[in-house]
């Protein structure tokens, strides 16, 4: 076995050399973007995950419409469908033509409707938190890398400090005071809107360090490039230098980090829901649907497994997509 692996590895390196040599001899006029798109097109797994991600995004976008036009109603309870213990009367968690994924024990609410809206709420929370983290991380990363000196040192220490805070612990511990602060200073309506804003803001405020470090690293090499020097010579302002010259060169790491941050925040929302922080029922999120299902897990297993697998599907597909994009953009960087 050891002999064959040696040969295999040897063969693979030879293969890689041919691969990288091929584009330059074959076609001379392909942009890096076209090369990446070409590589992506060959990567079946990434394409499949892209389709799954797009389906979830589509579901999230259409959910408010579906509720608006009355196709689904995630809040309507149907007590006639449950027995005296709150269990669905029908088999398989109350699955039927009207309720393809069954009903919620206790209230009889339609699981598919709740899950559909839940995907929308969860992705909205994840997207908003991701945006905050990305903007913070990219801006501070660029400034840190391009400005250097004491600004770089301060931002570096702030990153160290942020990383020293235990994230889940802070989210949980701050919830009691944080909710009051959000309500008072951001003037959000009491209850779920405040809870959603709290989760978004705190995830965003603690989640920016990774992208800031990546961007800083990239900027450190970018700032030695000719176009940056040229721009400085021509008297470009700092703002122009940072956000017009450097920023457009950073789209690759930004795209990859974005795709990988989304599923992390979907998971975080679920974990927080389990700890009782965040949006509460009746408003559905993937986290609180799964959390509500725990007490029925052994009695109505479908109601427990369906939201669990939905979260897993979102996390896996976003992660595979992110990995695929990264490999396509930088085939040598990650073997």
């Amino acid at each position, binding site marked *: 076995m*050891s*002999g064959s692996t040696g040969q295999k590895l040897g063969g693979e390196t030879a293969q890689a050399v041919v691969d990288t040599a091929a584009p330059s001899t074959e076609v001379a006029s392909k942009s890096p973007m076209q090369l990446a798109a070409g590589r992506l097109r060959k990567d079946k797994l990434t394409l499949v995950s892209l389709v799954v991600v797009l389906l979830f995004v589509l579901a999230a976008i259409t959910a408010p419409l579906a509720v608006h036009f009355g196709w689904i109603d995630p809040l309507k309870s149907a007590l006639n469908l449950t027995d005296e213990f709150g269990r669905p009367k029908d088999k398989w968690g109350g699955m039927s033509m009207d309720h393809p994924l069954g009903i919620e024990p206790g209230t009889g609410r339609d699981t598919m409707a709740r899950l559909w809206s839940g995907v929308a709420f969860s992705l909205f929370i994840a997207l908003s938190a991701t945006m905050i983290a990305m903007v913070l991380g990219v801006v501070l990363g660029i400034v840190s890398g391009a400005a250097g000196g004491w600004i770089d040192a301060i931002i570096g220490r702030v990153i160290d400090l942020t990383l020293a805070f235990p994230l889940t612990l802070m989210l949980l511990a701050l919830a009691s005071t944080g909710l*009051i*602060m959000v309500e008072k200073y951001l003037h959000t309506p009491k209850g779920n809107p405040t809870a959603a804003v709290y989760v978004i803001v705190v995830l965003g405020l603690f989640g920016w360090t990774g992208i800031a470090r990546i961007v800083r690293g990239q900027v450190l090499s970018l700032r030695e490039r000719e176009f940056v020097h040229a721009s400085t010579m021509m008297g470009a302002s700092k703002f122009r230098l940072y956000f017009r010259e450097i920023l457009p060169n950073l789209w690759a790491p930004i795209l990859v980090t974005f795709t990988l941050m989304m599923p992390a925040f979907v998971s975080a929302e679920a974990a927080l829901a*389990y700890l009782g922080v965040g949006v509460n029922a009746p408003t559905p999120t993937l986290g609180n649907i799964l959390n509500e299902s725990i007490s029925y897990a052994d009695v109505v297993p479908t109601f427990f497994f369906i939201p669990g697998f939905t979260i897993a599907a979102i996390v*896996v597909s976003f992660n595979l997509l992110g990995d695929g994009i990264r490999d396509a953009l930088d085939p040598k960087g990650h073997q």
Partner: protein
Amino acid sequence: MWAYAARRIVIGVMLLLALSLVTFVLFFASPADQARHACGKQCTDEQIAVTEKALGYDKPVLVQWGTFVKGMVTGREFPADPELKKTHPEFITTCDRPCLGYSKTNGVTVNSLIGEAAPISISLAVVAVVIWLVFGVILGIIAAVTKGTIMDRGIVGLTLIIYAFPTFFIGVFFLKFVVVKWGLLSYPQYLSIAEGGVGGWLTNLFLPAFTLALVYLASYVRMTRAFVLESLGEDYIRTARSKGLNSRTVLFKHALRAALTPLVTMTGIDFAGLLGGAIITEQVFAYNGIGKLTVDSANAWDLPTIIGIVVLAGSFVILANIIVDICYALIDPRVRLG
């Protein structure tokens, strides 16, 4: 070397001070009435005022933070009232250094609360680290040497899928299905080594530690795989191969050694993070570790305990980073400190 270590420690202490200050400001800047929560729902305004004074909540945040920092260094007494100490010394609770505070809710010092919970969290962390390192490194090496095959894709894919499920989903699945419904394992309840011996301690820890380890497994498999592949591409590996060494020696003696260094770093930091409590896992399995203590104190608005845990957990992370960086330089001669 020593200068570097000293500088890192000074920066570490400053970070810790900043961490505790930010924590204080975050918690006390809120308009919530902390004394009312500490005192309880039945308290009259007078009692609240007494509580406020006894706990020092009537003072500005910076003064409270100063008292907290001083308590870390010299220890504190609760309530800090010299007159009461003369007349009723039995009402005074002494909190030895490093004093993390006094929990009015529980009527004991935060140190003693954490002292009770810490062994459980530490046990959980130790067993979990062993599980995820053993499985992570083995699976990672297998994936690396079978790169591109079904085996490789299967290992990487499967661990990613496991990672994708929320921890509490996996924990509840183990408890309600594997343990209760199918009866495959016995219900885990924490036993200290003193109570149940090493065997009892380990069997009861297995399920929660395994749940916790699954969270980290995917990233360790990927890291090991990437590091092994990276070091297999290095020049000295080619040299070793061309010397005629068989690939087993090349893999285990040459490639793996270089690959393990960054793994040690990650393990140290992740382990330190867990010492602050595995909140979800401890909550699912009802293990009264630091994580469960956090949840309980958050629900009870027990602010001193929360602040104590945040500072403790933060200091573990800061300390681990320093230790890991220094160890890194000791293990790997290519790393230069400066």
